[in-house]
């Protein structure tokens, strides 16, 4: 019960911290407009290349876009905590770290889901992609799972990024990798073999496949396996990220350096 | 042979008349509330040619806002100001040609470029003639003591060096009027002393300088005249001597106390004949400074109030500019 409370309270509190960044003047140009147009851009590019259908790109990109807040919002949050020097105490707290971080990730996941769904809706409407209403609930479930796994990746990459000098470049790189490797715009079969292999260990790959199958008529049960795989991948990144952060915190305490964590 | 004296010109180089500046402040993220803050409320003063004029006041008093209006970065909400006869609103371009602006702090320079590149760029922007640029830059580097280090990137400079580079930048186009906004803030004592010497030499060279500061001794030692500003309004103007004389010729009682509390301070403030009380926190003790009215002898009464607290050194002295300032500012 405490873990749940910690998650909720921690999540709500961090939401206020996110507020400055959620300011419409910053939020709209970074989290609303670019996703909508990313979907359009690749759909048109797909038409130019005469590759696959509009639906292919709408599903692929809208699901991948959960990584936009997942990566950038999380790295901002963790960097922000580090700057205000609350990261180390946070990590050292006796509260269940997993619950705490999950709680703080809730707003980000919610935004990720929102971004995915909005860009899907926008893309389908503008490009005239036919979507059966019955597909929406399982699709939403798929997007929710992706929001979780991308946020988890966000935490892991932010942990690694603490050692990197320019965090923003690193986040850009990870986002780019997801865009290229995971079958979002290029079918996995048309990518070099090694990229497909790497993609299996990344979020987005399985849920994009699930999303496309759903639109092709599959049921939630059919894609269940893919969603479970995605959840497992997300969980792995979450554990990795937290372990890294905890490790840095220990090292920082031992060496009495505050600049690490 | 009598020492050379500086004769101050008769011309008013800077004239500020009833300057007002109001800011609109918005708070809150969802429910945005806005209200007006009057940062400068009717500031008037004039500076003569060759004068070193000080604007003295605590943080947030309106010093920086006043300066920004004079250098045309802000438009006054009401009132007017002229520099060398040019109106700061209507003839902004002309004012900018005649004015140099130097401010304190680490920012204000291109970090990844060398001092030389920075100066070259600003020389260009501030209209120094291409033929004269190299000579002028070299002259300034010598003046501020940065010759030999001009090829290093600014990011490696200490704060004192940055301040000197700021000064060089402000002087690049040889303006007759200089506005210095807290130029020695955060600089180490030795560096600050050198900077002050530099500033003093500027007026000897005939420039007119407006200096803002919250360092009392700086104002006292450098300025020909001082205006004390607090809460957006000038509360006193005059030479340092005049301001000190303005403090009622009582005395100042200083008592070292170990562990004074609020209640005791209140009681002392309430004593008849006490003009102002300040408590200065020093490492292990506090210094209680009590300004007393003329003709009073309050030492024993004050000490009686401190019953129970441990008392160290006690002294009585004449008021200084700092005391004048405190009295003016806390009135």
């Amino acid at each position: 019960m405490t873990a749940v409370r910690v998650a909720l309270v921690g999540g709500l509190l961090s939401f206020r911290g996110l507020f400055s960044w959620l300011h419409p003047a910053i939020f709209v140009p970074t989290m609303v407009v670019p996703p909508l147009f990313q979907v359009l851009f690749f759909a048109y590019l797909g038409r130019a290349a005469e590759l696959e259908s509009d639906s292919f790109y709408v599903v692929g990109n809208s699901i991948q876009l959960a990584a936009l807040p997942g990566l950038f919002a999380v790295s901002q949050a963790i960097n922000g905590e580090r700057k205000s020097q609350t990261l180390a105490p946070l990590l050292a707290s006796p509260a269940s770290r997993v619950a705490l971080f999950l709680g703080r990730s809730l707003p980000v996941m919610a935004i990720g889901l929102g971004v995915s769904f909005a860009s899907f809706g926008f893309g389908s409407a503008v490009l005239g992609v036919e979507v059966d209403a019955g597909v929406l609930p399982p699709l939403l479930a798929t997007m929710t799972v992706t929001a979780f796994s991308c946020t988890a990746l966000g935490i892991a990459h932010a942990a690694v990024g603490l050692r990197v000098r320019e965090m923003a470049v690193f986040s850009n790189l990870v986002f780019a990798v997801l865009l290229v490797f995971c079958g979002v715009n290029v079918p996995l079969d048309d990518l070099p073999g090694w990229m497909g292999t790497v993609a299996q260990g990344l979020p987005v790959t399985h849920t994009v496949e699930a999303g496309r199958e759903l639109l092709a008529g599959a049921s939630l049960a059919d894609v269940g396996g893919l969603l479970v795989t995605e959840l497992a991948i997300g969980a792995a990144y979450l554990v990795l990220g937290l372990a890294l952060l905890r490790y840095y915190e220990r090292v920082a305490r031992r060496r009495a350096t505050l600049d690490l964590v | 042979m009598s020492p050379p004296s500086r004769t101050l010109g008769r011309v008013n180089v800077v004239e500020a008349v009833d300057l007002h500046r109001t800011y609109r402040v918005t708070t809150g993220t969802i429910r945005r509330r806005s209200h007006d803050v009057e940062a400068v409320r009717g500031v008037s003063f004039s500076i003569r040619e060759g004068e070193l004029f000080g604007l003295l006041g605590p943080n947030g008093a309106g010093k920086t806002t006043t300066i920004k209006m004079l250098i045309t970065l802000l438009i006054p909400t009401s009132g007017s100001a002229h520099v060398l006869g040019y109106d700061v609103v209507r003839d902004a371009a002309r004012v900018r040609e005649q004015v140099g602006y130097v401010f304190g702090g680490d920012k204000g320079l291109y970090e990844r470029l060398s001092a030389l590149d920075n100066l070259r760029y600003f020389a260009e922007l501030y209209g120094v003639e291409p033929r004269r640029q190299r000579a002028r830059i070299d002259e300034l580097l010598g003046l501020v003591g940065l010759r030999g280090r001009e090829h290093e990137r600014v990011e490696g400079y200490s704060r004192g060096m940055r301040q000197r580079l700021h000064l060089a930048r402000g002087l690049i186009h040889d303006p007759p009027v200089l506005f210095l906004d807290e130029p020695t803030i955060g600089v180490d004592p030795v560096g600050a002393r050198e900077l002050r010497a530099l500033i003093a030499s500027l007026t000897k060279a005939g420039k007119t300088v407006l200096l803002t500061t919250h360092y009392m001794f700086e104002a006292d030692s450098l300025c020909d005249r001082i205006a004390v500003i607090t809460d957006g309004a000038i509360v006193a103007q005059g030479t340092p001597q005049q301001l000190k004389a303005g403090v009622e010729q009582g005395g100042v009682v200083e008592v070292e106390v170990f562990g004074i509390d609020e209640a005791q301070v209140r009681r002392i403030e309430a004593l008849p004949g006490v003009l102002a009380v300040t408590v200065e926190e020093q490492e292990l003790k506090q210094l209680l400074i009590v300004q007393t009215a003329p003709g009073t002898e309050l030492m024993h009464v004050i000490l009686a109030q401190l019953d129970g607290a441990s008392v160290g050194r006690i002294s009585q002295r004449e008021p200084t500019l700092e005391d004048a300032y405190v009295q003016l500012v806390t009135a």
Partner: protein
Amino acid sequence: MTRVVRVVAFGFLIHFKHLTRNPFDVMVTTIWPLVYASLAYFMFRAGSPPESLLIASIGATVMGIWSVTTVGAADAIQRQRWAGVLEVLVAAPTPFWTVLLPITIASSAIGIYSLASTLLWGRFLFGIPLELAQPIWFLVSIPPTIVSIGLLGFVMASVVVRFRAGWAVGNMFEYPVWIVTGLLIPVALLPAWAEPVSWALAPTWGMRALSDAAFSGGSPLFDIGMCVLLSAVYTLVGAVLLGRFLQSARRRATLSLT
């Protein structure tokens, strides 16, 4: 007049130097064009490729130039603010538009690094031969492309000076402009209204000039001429807007606040 040219030219050199020394800027400006070029190569190869994939390289490069310009322009004012230098620049007797203009052109000139890296990337990782039909015209087309795109950035920066939170706006204009100006996507595929819009945007003409020089025997002279014309228009519009917004900033005291 010579003074203006001097200030702009010198300002460009100084800011280009300053921006080049920021590894972050240079990295981001070179990475994303590589990503888009790679995606385009994969997609075209899997689908139906055009005559030469070099067009994807060029398109991705111009995308990069636009990207660094739009983000850099919107950011230009903010960066000067963060560096504490904005006030010094505005307080200078030189008209502010001559100060701001070279900053945005310097931003787009950073895109030159992405041109080199994207072409090399395509050549060495994807085997796309670097065969240009008219190499001289290609080189000649580069400066007008960069300058005109930089000046479009100048218009953007002039508007942004008015709004404290305007720095994020640069992000918003990346995709839409890429789509409309036909960089990787042929304009023919877009709705009819897109074409006239594209004519008013410098990247359209820059792309055409570079493509003409790279592939066809045709002369890119008209396209270069359009770049020059648009440059003049942007300069005028930007200078007027800037004057107005700067006055507003002085009144509302939004110049130095970070």
